[in-house]
Every structure is written in C-alpha cells, then in structure tokens.
C-alpha cells in the first residue's frame, strides 16, 4: 500500500498517477470500464433510457424479459473527471488535503483510462479539458490538474452538467468531491447525468477530522469557503456533529444507490491505491 503522506510529498502528478495505477492494477486483468462496442461482456436487466439497439431481442423472445447486452469497451470510452477544487477541499492542510487526495486519484484514473487508449477529460472550478485520447493529451491534462489549487466555492452541479453535456455519446462521469455544495442541486445534476445514459461514479472524499471531530474546549470554527465563524464548545458539540455527519453520509450512500450511481466514501488516511482498487473492483 502507498502511504498517503508519501504520495503527498511527490509533486510530479504523472509519476504519482503511475505509482498509484501500478499498485491498483496488480491482480486486475481487464479494464474496469465498460463500453457498448467490441467484445460482449455480460447481460444486465434493461433500465429505462437504455439504447434499444442493445436489447437482446432473441433472449427477450425466449424468456419474455428485457436484457441489455454489455460490451467490454476498447477504444470508444470517454470519461470526464469532475474534481472539486473548492476551498473546503483544502482541509485539513495543503499537503495532506482532500484536494490533494482528489487530484492524486483523478490523475491515477486519467492515467489508467488513457493508458487503455480511451478518452479522458477534466472539469474543475475554472477548468474544462475535453475528453481526448493520447499521451500528449494526458500530459496536458495532468499539467492542468497539477496547477489547480483549492479556493473559493465550487458549483458541483454545474460542473457535473457541463461534463455530462460535453461527453460524446454515453460516457463515464467520475466526481471527486466532498459534496458540501448544495445537496439537492448536486444530486439532481447527478441524476440527470444518469438519465442521459452516462455511468456516474462518486468518490466522496472526506478527512478523518471531519468524521471524528477530534476537537475539545472552546473552538472558533472558520468556514473555509464563506469565512463565516462559529464559536462553540467542541467537546459538547461532538455528539451532535457526528450524528449530523453520519446522517449526511448515509443519505448520500442510499440516494446514490437508488439511482444507480456508484458511490464510494474515501477518507484521506486511506492509501490512494487501495481506495482506487476498491473503487475499480466495485465496477468490475
């Protein structure tokens, strides 16, 4: 496993991506990203919105049930990585921040997708990189990614909508965010992306401090995005905070599951290769 602190110390994002991907792919023999062409992969139950041309009519005639054929995509996959680079992602500090973790994961995914010969793009707060193939594009994307820094607010819903719109045909949309933006809007954007036929995955990145709330005595909390302040007895507020966070995470998990969105909660103390491997295995 790769220590997150070690990954954080490497500034070359491409190198980081390669290290993470090498750790991730050991034991994985096939691409975890499924397309609609090329080699047949498996059947799955038809869902409204699936292209009718992929229905297996013969199977429907024999069984009376609708199944969609899935194929292992080879060259025609397009993926968009939506990376939340809002100020809240800068927590807990610059070197081991959620953003750094998200950027590392995004770089690894881009490297992985690109190395399969597929197109990959990037959407961030003020960045849009269209999905393309090729090593030069990958290097350009990683360079853009490495220049990002957490600041200001991030409209996750708009970024998701932009990525979903620009993806040609049906693609894969991977969101790496702490999802602290307006919850309903974000979820609605994700649902629309699913309705448009994209495969949507969410890497919900949080730090252990946000889950455990290891503070005590009087603390004045400063919102990283709005600058708003709240002073309170952290020890006394811990239980209520944890209850709220647990409810928030559970809400996202259940809602994502109900809409066919792949959801993975990742804390920044998890080695990124392990988190990525788990994420990819869940897709395989």
């Amino acid at each position, binding site marked *: 496993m790769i220590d997150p602190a070690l990954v954080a110390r490497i500034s070359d994002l491409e190198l980081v991506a390669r290290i993470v991907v090498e750790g991730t792919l050991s034991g994985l023999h096939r691409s975890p990203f499924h397309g609609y062409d090329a080699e047949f992969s498996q059947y799955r139950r038809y869902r409204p919105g699936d292209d009718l041309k992929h229905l297996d009519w013969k199977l429907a005639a024999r069984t009376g049930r609708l199944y969609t054929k899935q194929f292992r995509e080879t060259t025609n996959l397009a993926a968009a990585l939506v990376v939340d680079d809002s100020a*809240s*992602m800068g*927590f807990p500090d610059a070197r081991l921040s*959620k953003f750094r973790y998200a950027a590392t994961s995004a770089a690894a995914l881009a490297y992985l997708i690109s190395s399969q010969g597929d197109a990959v793009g990037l959407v961030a707060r003020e960045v849009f990189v269209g999905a393309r193939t090729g090593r030069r594009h990958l290097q350009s994307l990683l360079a853009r990614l490495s220049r990002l820094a957490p600041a200001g607010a991030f409209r996750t819903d708009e970024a998701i909508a932009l990525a979903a719109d620009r993806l040609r045909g049906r693609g894969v949309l991977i969101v790496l965010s*702490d999802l*602290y933006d307006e919850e309903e809007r974000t979820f609605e954007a994700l649902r629309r992306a699913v309705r448009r036929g994209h495969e949507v995955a969410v890497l919900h990145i949080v*730090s252990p401090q*946000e889950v455990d709330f290891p*503070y005590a*005595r*009087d*603390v*004045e*909390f*400063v*919102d*990283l*995005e*709005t600058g*708003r302040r*709240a*002073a*309170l*007895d952290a020890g006394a*507020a811990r239980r*209520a*905070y944890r209850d*709220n*966070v647990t409810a*928030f995470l559970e809400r996202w998990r259940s809602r994502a599951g109900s809409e066919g969105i792949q959801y993975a909660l990742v804390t920044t103390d998890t080695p990124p290769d392990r988190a990525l491997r788990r994420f990819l295995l869940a897709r395989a």
Partner: protein
Amino acid sequence: MIWLVPIAWVGAAAVASPILIHLLARPRAAQQPFPTLRFLPVVDEVALRRRRVEEVPLLLVRCAILVSAAAAVAGPLVLTAARRAEWNARLVRETVDGSDGDIRTGLARAAARLDVAPPGRREIVVRSAFPVGSIADDDVAAVPRAIGLRFERTGALPARREADAPAVLVSPDRLLRRRVTLDGPRTTVRDVDGAPAETPIDIVARADARASLAAVFAERVPAPPSGRRARLLVADAPTFAADVRDAVSVRDAWIGAAIATIARDEELLAVVARAGETLSDPAFARQPWLPVARNRDGRLLAAAAADSGRRLIVAAATPSSSFATAVLMRSTLDALAPPTRAADDVVAIGDAQLHAWSRDPAGAAEPRRDTIDDDDRRVLWIAVIVLLGVETWMRRER
C-alpha cells in the same frame, strides 16, 4: 501542629485572586479552519461567553500555590514526640554570680535571657554565699514558674554589710531614717535623712504634760507602722471621765500585744510602785478595760483598752506633771512599734530556706518564632516550587 506566625494566614486570602482571574478571563477560543459549518449544532454565543470557571485543575494548582506559600510563611511546626523529646533533653542554664551580693538584678537578667532561649528546659543556678537580705521571697516569686532554680553556696560571707535600721521619731511630727553598718564586731548606725510624720499619740492632759512628751521624743521613739496610734488619758484632764466611756474591747492583735508590752515594762513598773494614785472609777474594774500597772498599795493605777477609732487607749491615775506619767508615755510609744531584731551580725540565709526556694525546671514550653531553631516550612516551600513547575507546564500544554 502549631503555627509560629499565624497572622500570615491572612495572606491565604490571596487565593481569591486566581479564582477571580479564572472567572473574569474571557474564554479564548482557538481558531480552526473547517470545511463547512453545516453540521455544527446551533451555537449559543451567550453560553459560550458566560462567566464560568475554566480549567479547574489549573485553578486548583494556582490556589494550592498560594495556600502553600501562606502556610509556609505562617511557620508550621509539627510537634512530634521526637521533637518534644529533643527539646526536653536540652537544658538551657543561666548562672547568676551573686558574689557581689546583688542576686536580685542577676536573677531578673537571667530570666530575661532564658525567655528568648531556644526551646528546652530552663534553669537558673545562683552561686553566692547568700548573706541575709541578698535574696527574698519576692525575688524568687518574680522568676517564671517554668524556670528551675538551684542555689549553690560558694565563697565566704562579706565582712561588711549595710542595712536599713528602724526609723525613729525625734518629735511628734518628724521621722528620722537611719542606716546601720555591720562591720565585724563593730556596728555603726547613722542618720540618713528626716521626713514629716504623723503624730502617733494623742495626750489628753493638762498643758504641762507637753513638756514631758517633748522630753520623751527627744530620746527618740521607734516609729510605729502606719495606722498604729494611741491615746493617753491623764487623770487631771478635764474630759477624763467622758473619754473613759469611749473605751471598747480590744479587737486588734497589735493593741493586745501593745498592752502586754506596757504591762511588762519593768521601768514603768518600778516607777508606779512608788506612786500612790488610784483609778477610783469602778468602770476600770470591768471590761473593756485591762489593768496595766498598780500602785504601791496594789491598787489599779493604769488601765488600757481600745477606742472606737481602733486606737490604743491608756488611762493613768497620775497627774500630768508626774514622772510616772512621762514614763507611761514612753512605754506606750515603745509598745506601738513592733519589736526590733537585735543588732545582727552578717549571717547567711539558711539551707532550709534555700532548699524551699529551689525547684526543678518544667518541661519545654511552646516555642515562639524568635526562639525556634528549626521548623517545617522548608517542605511547604519545596511544594510551592514543585507546584509552580506544574502550573507552568499546564499553562504551556493548554
């Protein structure tokens, strides 16, 4: 445990200061950047800013520092059995050299020095030949009871000593003080000074009796103690009969002793034995009158009693001009004064008296701060230093 400077506990009131500081100091909330405030419970700013005691352990340590310091200044002294035994084993002794005869001053100085001595049993040893008059009951009583006394007879008695001689009256209203020097076989009495005095005797007689009285005082009469007075009634006085009825029974011992002294005066008895006057009033044969002298016929010539003014009253049958009257005056005046000690040679105070004055020292008394040689404040000062270290560490760690 006792406190050598209990007033220092007033300093413990300073413990209020850290409590006030903890109450008044506004809570300093550490700033913590955080991704979102949405999960934090609603903040009650008033509750956050209300005055409350913060950091109770730190407050307790600070209070303990002040209390320990006050206790240290108050001078704690644990009265352990071992410490008491140590004090009781210590004997602080002062020696008074009375070879110059001045034991009185030496005793007072020794007692004062022992008063500021370290805790222990205290004793004064007096070394002297102890001539009579060198120390008296009052001198011994002035020494605190806890201080033991021991008398060691050393050296020889002084060859020469001076003492006050009994004062004499040289006239009815003038006193003469005298000083006697005992120098081996030779005794010298010299007049020191004179002073006005109250006339100790009233003569109820004709005017010519005054000459007899002056003659008696010219021979010097021992001065009687204050309050001893006499009244001599001479038969030819105009108020004799009335004054006789003023007599009452004897109630004062000195009056009884004086009457006995007059009745034993051999010179008086010899003179009245030649006189023929008689106290014919039958009142003299009854109480309260007591016979004093009888004439050549064995009849009553002089009688004595007390009067309502608690005076000795003597009635004489002889006239004012009689020699017997003058002798009775002198005898009455002599009887007013207590018997004088015979002219003394220099003698020592007896061993029995010295033994009676001797006593063992009492146990060590409760110590005072200015006499204590060691107390237990060191432990408390060490505690203060340790607590200061703890307080510094707690302040830095918070």
